[in-house]
């Protein structure tokens, strides 16, 4: 049996011992699948465009969502509604939306992958949502550019559209290259 793989682990990070045959394998697992998580609060999170970014549902108004992001390296933060009104919680540091975003990103991708992507050095501290948030807040990050909100929101809509495509019963032989892994079990 293969050793258990933690969700979100990018598998080339593992020691060479675990990688025997990996470079000559057609079906090497490169990304572990997302871990199941509740989507009500944070329906969308992704590591893309040089940011950890996503969409957080408003606690008070069901038709409102917040678009939140943290940039790679500088950890600059932005949070506004989908109608481009700034979030009231970001006057000095990360608001609760951004904190929820980080929590859910860690659930979905695993803390190590998120930390590596954000270029957040945790030293010897074990990576989890709390240590990651603490480490970034500790650098006193500045508010970032909120112009990305429109892009993030349209990426969220593109993501939602994946539910709308038709299924097909014509075979896709290429999917043979994408076996599942037991990582999420």
């Amino acid at each position: 049996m293969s050793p258990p793989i933690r969700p979100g682990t990018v598998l080339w990070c593992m020691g060479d011992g675990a990688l025997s045959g990996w470079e000559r394998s057609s079906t090497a697992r490169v990304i572990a699948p997302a871990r199941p998580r509740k989507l009500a609060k944070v329906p969308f999170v992704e590591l893309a465009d040089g940011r950890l970014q996503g969409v957080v549902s408003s606690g008070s108004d069901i038709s409102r969502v917040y678009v939140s992001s943290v940039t790679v390296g500088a950890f600059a933060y932005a949070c506004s509604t989908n109608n481009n009104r700034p979030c009231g919680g970001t006057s000095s540091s990360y608001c609760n939306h951004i904190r929820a975003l980080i929590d859910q990103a860690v659930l979905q991708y695993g803390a190590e992958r998120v930390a590596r992507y954000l270029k957040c050095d945790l030293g010897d501290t074990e990576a989890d949502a709390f240590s990651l948030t603490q480490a970034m807040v500790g650098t006193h990050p500045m508010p970032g550019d909120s112009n990305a909100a429109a892009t993030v929101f349209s990426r969220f809509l593109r993501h939602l559209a994946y539910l709308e495509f038709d299924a097909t019963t014509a075979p896709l032989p290429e999917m043979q290259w994408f076996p599942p892994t037991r990582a999420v079990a």
Partner: protein
Amino acid sequence: MVPADEGGGLMRTDLLTETVDGLDEALAAVDAFDGALAAGLLRPQPAQAAGLLELADAVAGTPLAAKVTEAADKAAAGAADENHFVALAAARTALLGSVHDALGARVEEATGRPRGTHTQADSPREPGEQVNVLLAARSWLSDLARCGWQGMDHDVVSGAAPVVSALLPEPGLRRLAALLDGFAAELAASCPGASLKSVPERRWADLWARAMLLTVPGAADAPETGTVTGRLLPLGADVQEHPTAVQAQIHAVLEPADGSGARLVRASVSAPKPDTVVGAGLWQLLRPHMSLLEALSEGRSMELTDMPVTAEGDLLWSDDHARKGEPADAFATARVALPTAAEAPTAPLDRHPSRLAVPVFVEGYAAQAAEDELTFTIAGPELHVDADRIPAASPLTPQAVAKSGACIGLLRWDAGRFRLQPLAVESTVRKKTVALHAGAWAGGTTDKVGAKGEKTATDAVKVLRERAGRLLRK
């Protein structure tokens, strides 16, 4: 039931560990090219040029020779155009096609099953208005080849997004769409390439070459070559997934109503998905589109009437041509019907070792779970078991496989050896035979663990649909 040692069906596992002539040489040429591609073909170094020429030499005696030699020369000089890249992808595909054939012949010897006859497919349809998006895909793949895995960055990789968006809505282009979407997600998660400690060279070159060939109009066509009528006896379910796509393939024996010989067929159903739909959510997404999933869970056969089929033995499933039949035990099917069921040939362009997934039945083995390796030993060399391919939403577990005494599986080959992917196992619990199937929850489940997974998945999709309803149409 026919015991394995009387009616055939005894698999010669000893043949699976014997050397295959020419295999190492063919794979060495593939590796040489893969190494050249990994470093990028913008300004190739002498070692890369040598790798390209090794690929060209390996197909020197074939009709591809002239085109591939020209392409390798141009690429070695850093001057390859998109057509040259297609030629190199074709040469690599031809080599792996020969590997597929040699391994397939070996599997045939080991199972002792008859080979089906090939039905010539009609010539590919005329390409429609899809040519532009195919050319856009080819252009992205060419950029990727110039950067190589070591030189790729987010800018290059994100070039796939508009191509995938254009491909996805068109069901006829789903093969290329699903491939590029999964490939680009892996590359994005691995960027920047310069910081990679090691690279899955064989895999990424496979995905690159297959995608390149699918940009040739008509290459992805797998047309209907006839229809079948008869009794369909399911053997088990194989699931494939990447973050934004899922496919389930049901392997089954078809007993034609006209009395002609039994044959192996597959029924497939696939769909794009958001990356947060996982586990039982995969079955939920596919369930409404193929009644066979429910029949599989219930342990039933299905009666097919004029179901369209391709030359490769793929049923083009439509619920209109199927109705539920009598209960049918997969292990009875595996013991009685499988040994004489004929296998359909693989389409020429699809020939690749990773395409080999041959239903087999083994029993009377000693299962052994070592530290990180599960094996079955049946009178001879051990057979490695790939339990990692069992889907997450399934009652079948690696632990159950390790305690089993009989197994229906798919024989596959990867990274230099054959492995058995379990589809179902039988074990003896308190002197009773108990069967566990990988696809048991395909049609739904009342199992406690399974039902919990179903609820989590239902909730996730409900949230996404609610959000989509509120936000998408504004």
